[in-house]
């Protein structure tokens, strides 16, 4: 198949070749699209590309990237996780409350607590899906409300506000190291590690295999249950980690925090070219998808749309990306069929 694509790119004139290469890679087309929407925004408000604004956007999408990568692994295995916001809320609330109750506990352990709790909640999801054979959508629809309810139970309905937390905790995301904030470093580490995992490890490749064709994967010896369990543990871990970061960055832990965040996580994945049928997609695309959303959210006020339009615009973009993904996919299948017939 790789050979056929190579041959195709050699056909036609230079422009056609370039466009073919660009369109073949989702990452490339996203970058172009990003540039296209940036032009009118920058024309209208040149400060949009100022250093402080770019810094703000990247800080904003750091948490989203981590969460979207978690969602990516689940969608890659042909599942979905709707309990994103609830896991973030529970982990964030727990680390906020621990910080309030025991200010002497170092930040590292607060992050560890959130991450660990997330892993446990993800493991519950994974066990129900892999071993209880409950479809991911039903499982996570159920645990979404269970975890959110447990957050209320944990906090007894109260909030943790900025002055109840230590300056250490709420200050660390902004601490900069080599000119880059700690929050961005965290996101970068997650991106690099998960990229390596998904590309170069056996388990990572097995997720692609299960998502692409579970029956075929099972026949070549992939342990389906283990993989399905694992993707939810990975996603839960990342959501939990993001929850602790969320509390620190926004300097408050509220019961309703991150409600509806599953939509943004899924949006980043779909924009990044992750196939909902499973088995296709990559981390760089997801990160670019998150960046795209970040720019968009940031640009709404510039084009005189109130933040009340955010949900609507996001929904429309996801729908559009879905349609494009499907059409590209169908065209690929048709081409493959034609090639097979020609041979």
């Amino acid at each position: 198949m790789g050979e056929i694509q190579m041959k195709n790119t050699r056909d036609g004139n230079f422009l056609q070749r370039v466009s073919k290469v660009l369109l073949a890679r989702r990452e490339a087309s996203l970058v172009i699209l990003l540039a296209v929407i940036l032009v009118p925004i920058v024309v209208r408000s040149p400060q949009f590309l100022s250093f402080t604004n770019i810094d703000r956007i990247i800080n904003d999408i750091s948490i989203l990237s981590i969460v979207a990568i978690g969602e990516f692994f689940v969608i890659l295995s042909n599942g979905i996780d709707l309990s994103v916001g609830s896991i973030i809320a529970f982990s964030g609330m727990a680390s906020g409350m621990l910080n309030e109750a025991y200010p002497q506990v170092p930040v590292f352990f607060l992050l560890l607590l959130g991450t660990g709790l997330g892993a446990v909640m993800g493991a519950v999801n994974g066990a129900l899906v892999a071993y209880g054979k409950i479809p991911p959508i039903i499982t996570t629809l159920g645990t979404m409300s269970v975890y959110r309810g447990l957050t209320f139970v944990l906090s007894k309905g109260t909030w943790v506000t900025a002055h109840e937390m230590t300056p250490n905790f709420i200050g660390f995301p902004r601490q900069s190291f080599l000119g880059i904030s700690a929050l961005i470093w965290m996101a970068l580490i997650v991106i690099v590690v998960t990229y390596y995992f998904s590309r170069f490890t056996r388990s990572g490749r097995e997720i692609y295999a299960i998502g692409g064709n579970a029956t075929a994967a099972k026949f070549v010896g992939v342990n389906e249950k283990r993989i399905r369990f694992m993707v939810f543990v990975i996603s839960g871990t990342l959501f939990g980690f993001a929850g602790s970061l969320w509390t620190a960055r926004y300097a408050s832990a509220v019961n309703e925090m991150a409600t509806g965040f599953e939509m943004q996580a899924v949006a980043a994945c779909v924009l990044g070219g992750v196939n909902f049928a499973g088995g296709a997609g990559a981390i760089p695309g997801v990160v670019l998808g998150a960046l795209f959303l970040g720019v968009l959210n940031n640009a709404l006020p510039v084009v005189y749309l109130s933040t009340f339009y955010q949900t609507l615009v996001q929904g429309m973009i996801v729908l559009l990306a879905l349609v494009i993904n499907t059409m590209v996919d169908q065209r690929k299948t048709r081409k493959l069929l034609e090639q097979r017939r020609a041979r």
Partner: protein
Amino acid sequence: MAEQRDLVAKTRLIQETGWRNALIELFTKWEVLLGIIFVLMVVFFSNLSPYFLDYFNLMNATFQFSEKAIMALPMIFIIMCGDIDISIASIIALCAYAVGTASAAGVGTPGLIAIGLAVGAAAGLVNGLLITGFNMPAIAVTLATQSIYRGIAQAALEERAMTKYPAEFGFFGQEFIPGTMIPFELVLYIGLAVIMGFVLHKTSYGRRLYAIGSSPEAARFSGIKVKKIRITNYMLMGLFSGIAGVLLTSRILSARSNIATSWDLEVITLVVLGGVSINGGKGTMWGVVIASFLVGYLKFGMGLLKLSGTIMTIVIGTLLIIAVLLPRLLDGYKNTRKMRRQQAEAALQSAKA
């Protein structure tokens, strides 16, 4: 000696299983189990609270769940075909916004109802066309339209609420059938359940739903217009969400962009708890009707015991998971019994020979 004892035990197992099987068959039937749980729940709550078994209270409590129960009816069709719709709560918000705006513009009650139902049906139709037209996964599409439908209401209403309605508009969501203590909403729900139950169990449309759910491929090859039926299902879902939207607006006489959030969870829970298999092809109207009263009165009872809404959310979420897990365990139990019996029979035959 030991062999003989074993043989006797096996013979007894087979003899016993005759009537015991019939009983086990009956009591592992999902609808019967739900009925038993319902009775147990009533006994439980009426022992704990003197206000539970009160005719007026019981009737009044139905206001809290009739709208969700109405939405569960077309959701049966959708889940039966192996689909899902998580945009229904947003469709309600969209309908409420449309009804509220029309009312503020001076449209009368019949017009308001027509607008609510039309907007709902249109939203459902869009879902159906997107899903079948582009062949996209239902969960992804309805997740997107969930944002779009509520997003429209949010962009238009912002923080405002539409609270101006004609005086008689409140009838549908608040009043009782004149001369009785039966709420209009409840009567409407039962009426719609009878109609939808008839469609599901007595018409070719219903039989086709089961066929699609069992195997969409086989259904398509046997000449069933799968796409058309799925689109119809989504349109029905939208229409019934529109009905629920009108009822809810009429009940609370206020349309905000954040109404009915997380209703999708509860509606899907009702359907799944009612015994409709999420893998498609299985389930009855009876089960879902019993489940709607079960969950409705469970929440009412918990409210009487002064349990918070949070606890109820946890219970509903857990219920959803258990409702999927339990039938699988029951099936496993039935299968092992069957296998044991077959083994015993085989052993007996060979011993006789």
